[in-house]
């Protein structure tokens, strides 16, 4: 989950009223924000990825104002008219690559270092979340006073040159993609494209190479008063959602918003609210409360949404930046937040059912009991293991290997098809402990099927200087007899993990259900175990758990 740093003094000022630190700290969790770190001056809170407006203190302040009753209902985004030059002309050639663009102008604001930091953090969050790592949408924030309007959204070849942000010399697009970090990170979005999208101003100066980087020309600093925001992307909704969050944040920071037209429409059309009807019965059913429509409206307003009663229903207006709201159920949650989760009392519905464990669980419990009775201690290993443990050290056949893609851990790349290797690995890590060592495990093993077969298996090992086939066969027979009244036999066979001549298949009613034997000296050496080892593995799904 993403995290935002909040300076308490700044936040307190943004919230206004007579809020102190403790009041803020108390309220944050009830906005759904987890406090990760707390110092005297600042706190770090984790916010939900579906609320990018909480990526800045301005957004969080708006939420707090609602919960604390300082301000209710939605902030009205008043978009002032601009002159005709406030326009982004779109070249049809962009349709083939990154076809959507929209933007807004924000004037007469104050930028300080912290505000710039917050805006950058917001941008990053939007790029990652809604923007899907800049594919669906990416934001450019520019110093308006460095730009001559109107803008042109067009395409250029990779030889196109300009001075990118943070650099002092011209580079070609090709060089940016090759040499700059952002170029390497996001260059794949421009793969297989002959031309790239760029934004030029009226004087043909490059202001941005979306979705990679802005030009140095329009860098925003603490001197910046007026801002131009453009959002480009491959998904119209994501592009406009992103713009809505940025515009709402700039409004919260005290900027005055001005229309920036694209060919088709102006910004104000983008920010139209969405009407949504909410049935008070749904609210009361889901929350287990008896709220009046009027109080429901009040709780929605505390969540910074506009709501009025309309007959027996409630009509709610959803601001564009609240794209986390899909339908009435999301509004139910808003009511719960407005009501205050801390104010919800618990109730306990009567149970109409008798609970029970799954039969498989019951059987495994019983088998485990018998195994401990036989002196075996239970081990637990991962289903994901390594080629080394599963096949190389045990000399087992790896033709049925099932692999996962791009594991971050070398020790977890293959799904186990047997549990004996894991137990041998356990013995090898316990060579300094006293013998005898007897371990067992029950769990799932995997083999090729349609597409994958999962079976439940039981394996055990006995390690000490005098262990033998006889000892382990006696344990096996006792287990099956005690647990399930099953007689089993052992039929000589071959298996590379066991000693030749001291290994057999476990047979039940004429069917092979497992393997048994003394572990081969070579395998024991591979695991650096300092004792003799014998063991067995039986596939419970093939007999005891069948049907």
């Amino acid at each position, binding site marked *: 989950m993403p995290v935002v740093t909040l300076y308490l003094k700044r936040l307190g000022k943004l919230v206004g009223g007579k809020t102190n630190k403790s009041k803020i700290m108390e309220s944050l969790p009830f906005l759904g924000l987890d406090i990760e770190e707390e110092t005297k001056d600042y706190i770090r809170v984790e916010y939900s990825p579906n609320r990018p407006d909480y990526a800045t203190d301005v957004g969080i302040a708006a939420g707090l104002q609602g919960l604390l009753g300082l301000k209710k209902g939605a902030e009205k985004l008043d978009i002032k008219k601009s002159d005709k030059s406030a326009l982004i002309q779109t070249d049809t050639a962009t349709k083939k690559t990154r076809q959507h663009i929209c933007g807004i102008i924000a004037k007469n604001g104050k930028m300080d270092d912290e505000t710039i930091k917050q805006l950058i953090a917001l941008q990053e969050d939007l790029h990652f979340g809604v923007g899907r790592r800049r594919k669906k949408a990416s934001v450019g924030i520019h110093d308006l006073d460095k730009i001559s309007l109107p803008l042109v959204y067009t395409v250029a070849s990779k030889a196109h040159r300009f001075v990118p942000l943070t650099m002092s010399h011209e580079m070609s697009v090709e060089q940016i993609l090759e040499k700059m970090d952002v170029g390497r990170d996001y260059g794949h979005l421009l793969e297989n494209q002959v031309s790239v999208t760029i934004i030029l101003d009226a004087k043909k100066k490059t202001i941005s190479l979306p979705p990679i980087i802005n030009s140095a020309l329009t860098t925003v600093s603490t001197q910046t008063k007026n801002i131009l925001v453009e959002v480009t992307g491959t998904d119209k909704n994501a592009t406009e959602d992103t713009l809505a969050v940025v515009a709402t944040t700039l409004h919260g920071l005290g900027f005055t918003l001005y229309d920036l037209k694209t060919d088709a429409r102006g910004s104000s059309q983008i920010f139209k609210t969405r009407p949504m009807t909410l049935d008070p019965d749904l609210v009361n059913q889901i929350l287990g409360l008896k709220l009046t429509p009027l109080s429901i409206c009040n709780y929605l307003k505390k969540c910074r949404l506009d709501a009025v009663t309309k007959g027996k229903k409630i009509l709610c207006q959803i601001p564009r930046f609240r794209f986390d709201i899909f339908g009435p159920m999301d509004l139910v949650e808003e009511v719960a937040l407005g009501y205050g989760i801390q104010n919800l009392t618990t109730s306990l519905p009567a149970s109409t059912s008798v609970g029970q464990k799954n039969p498989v669980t019951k059987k495994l419990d019983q088998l485990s009991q018998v195994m401990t009775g036989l002196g075996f201690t239970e081990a637990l290993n991962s289903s994901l293991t390594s080629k080394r443990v599963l096949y190389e050290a045990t000399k087992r056949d790896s033709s049925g290997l099932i692999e996962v*893609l791009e594991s971050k851990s070398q020790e977890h790349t293959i799904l186990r098809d047997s549990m004996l290797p894991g137990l041998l690995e356990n013995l090898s890590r316990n060579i300094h402990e006293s013998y005898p060592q007897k371990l067992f495990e029950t769990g799932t093993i*995997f083999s090729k099927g349609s597409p994958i077969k999962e079976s439940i298996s039981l394996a055990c090992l006995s390690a000490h200087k005098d262990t033998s086939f006889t000892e382990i066969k006696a344990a096996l027979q006792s287990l099956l007899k005690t647990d399930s009244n099953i007689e089993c036999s052992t039929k000589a066979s071959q298996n590379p993990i066991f000693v030749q001549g001291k290994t057999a298949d476990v047979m039940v009613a004429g069917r092979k259900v497992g393997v048994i034997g003394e572990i081969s000296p070579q395998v024991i050496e591979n695991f650096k175990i300092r004792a003799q080892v014998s063991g067995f593995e039986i596939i419970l799904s093939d007999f005891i758990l069948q049907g």
Partner: protein
Amino acid sequence: MSQVLHPIEKSIIKLLKSTPDLAEEQIAEKTNLSIDQTRRGIEWLRLKGLASVSESEKSFVKLGANGLKAKQEGLPERKLVNLIAGQPASFSELQKKLQGEINVAIANAKKNDWITIQKGETENIVSLKHNPGQTREEKMISYISENTVAVDQIKDSATLESIKRRPDFLVIETTKSRTVSLSEQAKTIDTDKQDTGAIDVEADVPRVYAARTHPLKDTIDEIREVFVSLGFSEVMGNFAQPSFWNFDALFTPQDHPAREMQDTFYIKGKAAEKFANPTQIKRVSDSHKKGWKYDWNVEAAKKMVLRTHTTCVTVKYLAENKPDEARIFSLGRVFRNEKLSYKHLVEFNQVEGIVVGKNVSLRDLMGIQTEFYKKMGLYKIKFWPTFFPYTEPSLQTMVYNQRLGKWVELFGMGIFRPEVTKPFGITRPVLAWGGGIERIAMLKYGLDDVREFYNNNLSWLRTVSKCQ
């Protein structure tokens, strides 16, 4: 009280009864026991309150190299006065004979007022004032001679100090000695009494370890029992699941970051052939198109993943059974493509419970949670809002951890989104909650590193106490 004594103990008691208060070494020597045996025996006796040991430090003195030389040849000043006994001698003559000792000899002889020094024609002449008798230092050197003498036996400590100041005249050695004395009770013990065949029932014995189930399994069982006692029945499902049930059925869009390979394990070269019926697929597809506004792709839904939560099992159960009323739970391993750390595992256990009913509410969900935690021995809990992609409203439980002195996040909960339930024809609210089991087990066993559960260290498995 009858006391069983080891033969070693008996022989020590026997000796000390006749010769009280001996040092360990002396006891060893006189009983013919090794020093180790003696020390062990003394320790046993001490623990039984039959003997006490007093430790003391003692210093001994013997002559060093220069001291021994002086004993043979006399002190440097004595050598000097012997040389000038007949007639005075010049400084250079004396230097030839006394060499390095000349300065010390002159200084001490002058201090003792034995000599006079006069200016001659070319150099100083040293002559004897009167014939000196034996000094205290000389007496002490001949007293110590080649012996080692306890410092506390020497009465003239001032002289000892002055000899000490001469380099390498004396060697002082300090030794610690442990003197053993019998208690009054021990003095009454008859060591010759007939052995009754009794053993020391109070002594330590070698450790044995009970074979046992895994501590984490015990917690898992405990959680299962709690669910069953609350009227829940257990359902099970596969670890390897088509993306459809793990993600799509739970309204996770196909381009969602959680579905990327860096978070989820995809199984190489495996795609599900039949995973749901056409109506289910169509409706899920529609739900995604409507909610997320993109073209849902059936191929992405076929990719096999290792389940990232047990919710895929419960949602599949709901889709297949469409119950009007139900209390079910599923419990088992889930997988995340994470770097291993003290708080992250690649594979861990999760439990999830759901309640389906006509009039069930968020308050009921909170009530069931409270009851669940109470049964797990966790009483101090509170609820905070949170976000989960497939529930709305969503809450998380915070539990107060006494040991850490802070609130920790435990299970998440919520009501399944209509976008999840509607495609499968489920119209009643579905309350759902769940979370990682290792987290609870860590609280119970007081562990700070979750990996300990899967290390299978026998030193831990054999000795950790069952949860109370």
